């Protein structure tokens, strides 16, 4: 990050500085002894929630492993149908967005309101780019060729009878992941709104930025596993 200083606070309208939602004015919930405790609790809650997300995806990875052992041919064929370059492009997009998400947290800690917003916007833009690549160059093309899940499978040149199962797991795994990308982007959208409207996040109050970033890193991490399993391993 540049060392550029943030907008001079005197330029900020009084309505924002006086708002109870401005980070300097936020107080802890009535059942907490201090804002620090509340922050720690929110972070612990987020980590527990991420654990449940890992276990949710574990079901899909487990199904992948079981059917890979049962039908290795279909699984090898399956990954040949995918173009690794689109997967790699999306990996790069998500890695970049994880970096900007981490930067957003740092900017909130340093009260750099402008760069906080820039980093969030880049993160959301990366999410949109990821979904665009996924839909335009992968889902649409594959579905057009009849490479659809389950009984909708109509690709005429399949080599193995169990390829429809491979496509089922591909669409479920990447589909649920894509849903998480959308949810994460929406979460950053909320953060962006409060950051712009109230300057709600600063050195003593950045819980939501931190938790949104944690969630985003998990979304990234899941893709880091999906990418090699689906695109690279034959």
């Amino acid at each position: 990050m540049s060392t550029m200083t943030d907008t001079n606070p005197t330029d900020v309208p009084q309505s924002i500085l006086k708002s109870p939602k401005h980070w300097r004015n936020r107080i802890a919930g009535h059942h907490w002894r201090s804002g620090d405790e509340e922050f720690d609790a929110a972070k612990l809650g987020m980590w527990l929630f991420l654990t449940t997300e890992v276990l949710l995806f574990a079901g899909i990875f487990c199904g992948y492993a079981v059917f890979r052992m049962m039908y290795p041919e279909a699984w090898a064929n399956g990954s040949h149908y995918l173009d690794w370059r689109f997967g790699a492009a999306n990996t790069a997009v998500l890695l970049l967005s994880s970096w900007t998400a981490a930067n957003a947290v740092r900017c909130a800690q340093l009260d750099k309101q402008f760069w906080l917003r820039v980093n969030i916007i880049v993160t959301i833009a990366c999410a949109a780019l990821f979904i665009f690549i996924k839909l335009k160059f992968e889902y649409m093309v594959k579905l057009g060729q009849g490479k659809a899940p389950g009984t909708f499978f109509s690709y005429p040149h399949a080599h193995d009878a169990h390829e429809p199962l491979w496509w089922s797991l591909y669409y479920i795994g990447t589909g649920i992941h894509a849903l998480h990308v959308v949810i994460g982007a929406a979460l950053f959208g909320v953060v962006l709104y409060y950051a712009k409207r109230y300057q709600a996040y600063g050195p003593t109050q950045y819980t939501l930025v931190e938790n949104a970033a944690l969630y985003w890193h998990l979304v990234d991490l899941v893709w880091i596993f999906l990418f090699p399993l689906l695109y690279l391993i034959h």
Partner: protein
Amino acid sequence: MSTLDTHAGHHDEGSYLSGPPGIMAKIWQWATTVDHKKIGVMYLFAVLFMFFVGGTAALLVRYELIDPMRDVITQSVNADGDLVETTTSTGENLRDLFSGLGVAGDLTGTQIYNRAFTLHGAVMVFMFIVPSIPASLGNFFLPVMLGAKDVAFPRLNLLSWYIYLFGSAFGILSILMGGVETGWTFYTPYSTTTDADHWRVVLMVTAAFILGFSSILTGLNFVVTVHKLRAPGMGWFDMPLFIWAIYATSIIQVLATPVIGITLLLLIFERIMNIGIFDPAMGGDPVLYQHFFWFYSHPVVYVMILPAMGIISELLAIHARKHIFGYRAIAFSSLGIAGVSFLVWGHHIFTAMGELAAILFSGLTFLVAIPTAIKVFNWIATLYKGSIVLNTPMCYGLMFLFTFSIGGLTGLPLATLATDLHLHDSYYVVAHFHYVMMGGTVIAFMGGIHHWWPKMFGKMYNEPGALIGMGLVFIGFNVTFFTQFFLGTQGMPRRYANYVDEFQTLHQISTYGSWILGLGFLVHLAVFVHSLIAGEKAPANPWGGLTLEWECESPPIEHNFHHEPIVKHGPYDFETTVPPHWDPKDYPIHPDAGKAAH
């Protein structure tokens, strides 16, 4: 960082039950509340309503089984001298009942029976017993017993409640549309092929999926609350054992429920889009569904029983006025059960796996008996030389020791591979399961409701009335389910409306027992309603408890405590501590109480 003045008193606050004037204002206040006590009370009434729905379905199942359902073929000679065969169906009790009401449609007797037992199982598991103790008594008492003003995330708590209502609405919609006949486990291919042109199965599975989120969020909230909101002076080993049990429960809820989430999601996709993962015709594997399902649903039976064990630890210690025996052993055995619970799912599908895997799962299953037995021995040692008061909570505690021990010990033959071959899928399993779930969880829940009733509503209940209800429940429960051990060992399979004549006497006894059981719960209902309308005002500490909820008023004020409590004695130090709000005319305390230095 801004710091709240935590020592500011809350002296002018009224009870949490007092609200604004006007019925609409009150409803709005309850519907939007983030107070854990109000949310706990709403959960309590909701789960008791679900218990009523599921219990009614159970009575219907028993009513069908009072005589066997079968086709009788009669041969006769007509006027022309030809042999004529006429087929009549007998014993279709539910079909006759529902035809009389005009709602049977063209369903056969067995279809109605299948729907009745699925309704019973699905409602009781997903809508009653999983949320029962944690979401109602846990929500109300976990923060209070920790000395906190609320759970860690109050708004998330309200969200859990609405997710529970939303999920239950899906389940009820499915029932109103006619119900499902898959069994509560939704095994494929039952769940993918029955009712192919209807949405009922999808709705019921969606209900279970949504209810899972409620369960996860409640568990997550409780884990963080226990970590972050203990009162000053309360270390981990100063927590009441009820908290330890809820903590272990919450960990299982957080770790196991996502797996059923993805499983049910795959099932919904399978059903709507034929993705084929569980469909053998496309190379899918129905046994994979069973593995996924039980990876959640076995740990979740400990979600059902662990909070009950927590309640029993409180009931026995307080109503025997005795320090709990083996505090740490009980606390760690809760965590031990939670840990082992994730390693034993395979014992539900012994016949669907290899010999080595079956032997391993059998061995791991036996491990569950160790922490469980540790608890039972510690409870009995707690009672030894205690000043036992035979009131309703204590009687339910003693009943738990009796029925739960039967339930636990009859599980061992099911974990043993050789005997399980004979017993599996028989009424023996049904009896074992009900001795643990009903003889364990429901009995402890009843004891807990009576124990904390004065604190929750500020009213005493009618003790003789409650004892009569307790007696009827004890007799009815054992008559209903003990007979089923005999039925199972003699070969009666579960989930059949038909059976050979030899089983009829035992089935009839079981059905009569279910009526006594139902009567017992109706007596309890009457006692509760009477207490709410005309109950005596409860003192702040009617039993002489030392945990923090007895320092509150009955019912507690909005923020629970007038001042943040500071913990100076252990939760079970009856020998050395004078209980808060003690009035000598209420009950005697230990002669040495208050003499020893802290």
